[in-house]
């Protein structure tokens, strides 16, 4: 280009200056980017898209760098973390002070609840096939947490000793008083009725993706909570799985639905599960017929991996009741490479 400019009568010094200016302008027009994800494969759902700007409740706005977890496993079509079972050590023993005796931890009387007519409750697809998890101190159920905050009742998954993955709308949203962050966040791993086997933890911060915070873009409806404790060492963690095509995979959805009551009548305190197959995969969402009700936002849609590890990993974060062109399928935010990278960054953040 320099020679071309000189040939066209521009003095060498000026031509050189123009080239420098041009190069500087082009380079300057590119925003600083994190190191691209290591995976070069780019099938649908886990392409090389870098995570968006991440927004923290303490005011930080961070362009995440790539963090490769020490336990990352390469699969035939992506990457995953295997999670871990943790020690399982209980914080509260049944019958200890402030905890219910063993007999009160038994399942609630669900005979009047299961299979009842759910007219108008359209996130239950057909007959309600949810069943109560009564063994919430077993892995992976103990790694699933009940979340309460000023925004409401949600569910989440331990993904590190002190990090919980959940839906973005559980952490930041507009429910009538303008867009706000959730405050007074409490997390109860493996809660079952009034029994809280691992106690509860508060939050140091919450974080969501910029497109959720800016415009409530449902493709970016995910977030994380940094706890003020390390209870994940006890409860264990769920892995995260980037899958190119999880349609047809048998998965389970865990959560704390608000329509279910424990023996004392408290609602949204018991853990429930439904197992079914993934029906449809969009670029950033998975659609499935698993039954669920309000309170199960943020819960894991997970599967049992048996080829590269014997482990449990989430492929989606449950988020939305059915809507749009698929009125009979619930929705979750897909664990894409971008979501995976954001989660790893949050795990590494303090």
């Amino acid at each position: 280009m320099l020679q071309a400019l000189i040939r066209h009568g521009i003095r060498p010094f000026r031509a050189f200056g123009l080239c420098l200016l041009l190069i500087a302008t082009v380079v300057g027009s590119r925003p600083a980017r994190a190191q691209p994800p290591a995976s070069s494969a780019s099938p649908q759902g886990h392409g090389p898209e870098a995570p968006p700007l991440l927004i923290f409740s303490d005011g930080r706005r961070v362009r995440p760098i790539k963090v490769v977890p020490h336990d990352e496993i390469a699969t035939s079509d992506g990457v995953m973390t295997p999670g871990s079972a943790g020690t399982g050590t209980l914080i509260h023993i049944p019958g200890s002070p402030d905890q219910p005796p063993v007999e009160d931890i038994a399942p609630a009387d669900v005979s009047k609840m299961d299979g009842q007519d759910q007219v108008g409750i359209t996130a239950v697809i057909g007959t309600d096939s949810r069943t109560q998890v009564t063994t919430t101190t077993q892995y992976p159920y103990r790694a699933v947490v009940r979340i309460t905050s000023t925004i409401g009742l949600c569910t989440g998954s331990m993904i590190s000793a002190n990090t919980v993955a959940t839906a973005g709308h559980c952490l930041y949203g507009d429910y009538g008083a303008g867009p706000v962050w959730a405050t007074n966040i409490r997390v109860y791993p493996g809660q079952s009725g009034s029994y809280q086997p691992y106690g509860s933890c508060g939050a140091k911060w919450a974080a969501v993706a910029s497109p959720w915070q800016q415009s409530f873009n449902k493709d970016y409806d995910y977030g994380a909570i940094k706890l003020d404790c390390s209870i994940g060492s006890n409860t264990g963690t769920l892995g995260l799985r980037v899958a190119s095509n999880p349609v047809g995979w048998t998965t389970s959805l865990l959560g704390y639905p608000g329509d279910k009551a424990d023996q004392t009548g408290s609602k949204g305190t018991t853990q429930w599960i439904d197992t079914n197959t993934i029906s449809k995969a969009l670029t950033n969402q998975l659609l499935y017929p698993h039954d669920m009700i309000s309170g199960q936002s943020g819960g894991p849609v997970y599967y049992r991996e048996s080829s590269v590890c014997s482990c449990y990993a989430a492929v989606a974060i449950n988020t939305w009741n059915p809507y749009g062109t698929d009125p009979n399928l619930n929705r979750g935010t897909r664990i894409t490479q971008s979501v995976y990278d954001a989660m790893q960054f949050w795990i590494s953040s303090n």
Partner: protein
Amino acid sequence: MQSSSVRWVIVVLIGALSLIGCGTQEPGTRAASSGQPTATTATGLVQGRVTTAAGVPIAEVPVGAQSVGNTQPVPALGRLTDQEGRYTWQLPAGNYVLMVGTITKTVDLQAGQTVTLDFVDP
């Protein structure tokens, strides 16, 4: 003449690239400065109280919402009542079923409307 037109092309090119460069901004940064999401869906507000039959407010009760016919997207969270048993939920205009436990009530919510739905939880 020829060198003059090359100069003009260069000037225009630099100007265009500069404009592109100036326009490159991290997604949503502008909106972030005001802290206001840009969603513009017409919404209404459902509010109410959850009490016992004796009128005693019930705190920490999840109130759920579902779109009738699934025409509107509704997040799968439960709004929790405060210490006075009150809840609010801003939703896109449409028909909804609101739930407290297995008690359900329907509402046809219009844009800009505030509807009160109280629940008695025995």
